[in-house]
């Protein structure tokens, strides 16, 4: 349970209101190019105000990154502090140059990221401007609605997820012996009389150790063929990681019906890659 909160009381110097900075990885809010400070975000009354804010969206999803928030600050502001209610810390973002139309009002451009651990339906983002003397102004608040987590859509979805920045590959073999993986992302067009649809491979995550942070791959069908499916997991490379703990989920209409899990070690990376690569982790009959 997070216990810290925005304290709307007078506080006249940044150093007096926060503890030592940390990495901020465990905070709900993450801000690019900003410095993290632990502790409650405290505003003041004598510092410069936040004059205006503009967010491109009022809805965010847990795990989303790159949400843009711009704004203008009162004269003399050198930075803006950003923090969520109930978060464990806040961020210090230096102010940018003012617009030529308003040369005494510094601006700020924030790129916000939101943790996958967010468990709220609405977030209150507080912004406090601060000047060179450390004097803080009154808080301004922006609200974001939190979209519920949406499982991968499709009648049948097979998802592989893992925990370290390794290159793992999902292979799914359908009842017609079509293999869907990074090398074959769409299964052949089925006979229309069967009423089934093509399977689609989602995205080859961390391919060749080009880290994208998704650490997940999916194969999905709207109307899958009936019969036996086989799921394989291939450790293409561990990308310097000691191991990768993976899980495979089988979802029907968004609900998890089966799952398997295991550990990929450097020993798994020694085998040949490509079609039918990997080790079989589960099989199931789709009716």
């Amino acid at each position, binding site marked *: 349970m997070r216990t810290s909160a925005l304290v709307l009381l007078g506080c006249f110097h940044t150093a007096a209101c926060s503890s030592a900075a940390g990495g901020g990885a465990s905070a709900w809010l993450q801000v690019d190019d900003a410095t993290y400070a632990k502790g409650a975000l405290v505003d003041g009354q004598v510092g410069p105000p936040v004059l205006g804010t503009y967010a491109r969206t009022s809805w965010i999803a847990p795990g989303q990154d790159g949400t843009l928030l711009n704004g203008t600050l009162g004269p003399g502001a050198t930075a803006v502090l950003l923090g969520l209610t109930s978060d464990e810390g806040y961020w210090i973002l230096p102010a940018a140059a003012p617009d030529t139309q308003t040369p005494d009002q510094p601006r700020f451009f924030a790129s916000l*990221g939101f943790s996958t651990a967010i468990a709220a339906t609405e977030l209150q983002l507080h912004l406090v401007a601060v000047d060179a003397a450390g004097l803080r102004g009154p808080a301004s608040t922006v609200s974001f609605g939190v979209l519920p987590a949406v499982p991968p859509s499709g009648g049948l979805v097979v998802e592989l997820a893992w925990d*370290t*920045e390794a290159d793992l590959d999902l292979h799914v073999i359908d009842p017609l012996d079509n293999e869907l993986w990074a090398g074959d992302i769409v299964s052949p067009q089925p006979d229309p009389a069967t009423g089934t649809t093509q399977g689609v491979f989602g995205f080859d995550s961390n391919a060749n150790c080009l880290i994208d942070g998704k650490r997940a791959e999916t194969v999905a069908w709207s109307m899958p063929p009936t019969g036996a499916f086989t799921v394989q997991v291939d450790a293409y490379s561990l990308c310097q990681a000691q191991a990768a703990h993976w899980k495979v989920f089988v979802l029907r209409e968004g609900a998890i019906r089966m799952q398997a899990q295991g550990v990929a070690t450097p020993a798994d990376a020694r085998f040949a890659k490509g079609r039918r690569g990997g080790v079989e982790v589960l099989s199931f009959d789709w009716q």
Partner: protein
Amino acid sequence: MLSLFAAGTARANPPIPLLPEGPAPATGQPEVQVHGYLQTDGIAWAQNSEDQLTPSTSEPLNQERLLIRRARLEADVRRGRLLGMVEIDANTVRGPTTGLASAEFSYLAIRSQPELPDLFMASLGLLRIPFGAEVQERDRDRLFLERSNVGRALFPGAFDLAARLQARWRSLVLQLAATNGDPAGSGKYALQNTNAAKDLAGRLAANIVGSGRLRVEGGVSFLQGKGFHPGTPATKEVLVWRDQNEDGIVQTSEIQIIPGTPATPSRNFQRFAVGCDLRLVGDLPRLGQVTAFGEVVWASNLDRALLPADPVGSGRDLRELGIVAGITQELGGHLVLGARYDWYNADLDAAKALPVRIVPSSAVFSTTAFVVAWRFSSLDRIAVEFDLNRNPLGRGSAGLPANLPSDTLTVRAQLAY
């Protein structure tokens, strides 16, 4: 060599590494000794050897080779009650490397009153972790070439940065240590410290000399601490082109924008281990010493090498169980025979944790080792060992998990100096 470690070095299977057995050190000029040993291996046959490179890391898969397994140089200094020791290791296991094997500073106190602990020792440095009998055994004293699967999984390098207390009273020895928790050989963060919590490890051992020619040594051990699940850094947006139809032409359907992701935090998790060990040593007329030994370790989330345990990534605790049993027999003054079986399950709940079959369907590693050694002196010997290995790391022709054939035949020459 200081008397501190002298006990047991004259036999193939030394007893529990006890504390100094000599008289209280006299003050005066420091006593400095330099010594070491060399182990050169020739792997005559390795079942998993190929004249290829690992696809992902380009490391050679060939195992049939000559290598320097351990070349150790140790310097000891003793100045009154103060002891210091530094041990350097060089080897060619993954190419030529040199590093610190152990280093310790100790304060030693010896008493003569029988009702008090007759010896007390406080140490600080890169120390042997006080858990189990096998971890305590020096590499040069062990007849078998390497430690068992469970020993290598839970304590990959046997050494960690620690503060340790040792006390001996009559036949009992108590060892307690607070360690960083990232021992040598434990991967990316070995001998660093990923969390502020310290692992607490300890061992209580007894060395009982029975009537006749039988000696019994045994101990119980524990470890309690916190492991570390590494977080992941934030990623930026990435524009990716995958040539799905392999025509070499960029098409809009082949371009994807992968949004950036926020960082995920690192987390700590609880881990523990308990173990017990027993060793029976007897002297057979005309033949020599016979030694039977066994050890059992039960742990949770402690595997740091074979199948690294991470309950955060796995979503559940991983319980481990390891068993080691063996026997050695001297035949005359030079020849020694030995056999050892070890069984290690890295995930006791693998089969019942989920409603469907998981991979690996078995997390059991086992090794049956047979060794024949010819000793030129107490520590100089040539040993031939055959290891019959079983593991869940291979794949069958149908893609199902299977044993990865990895039996080996190794010749080792050891010389101490």
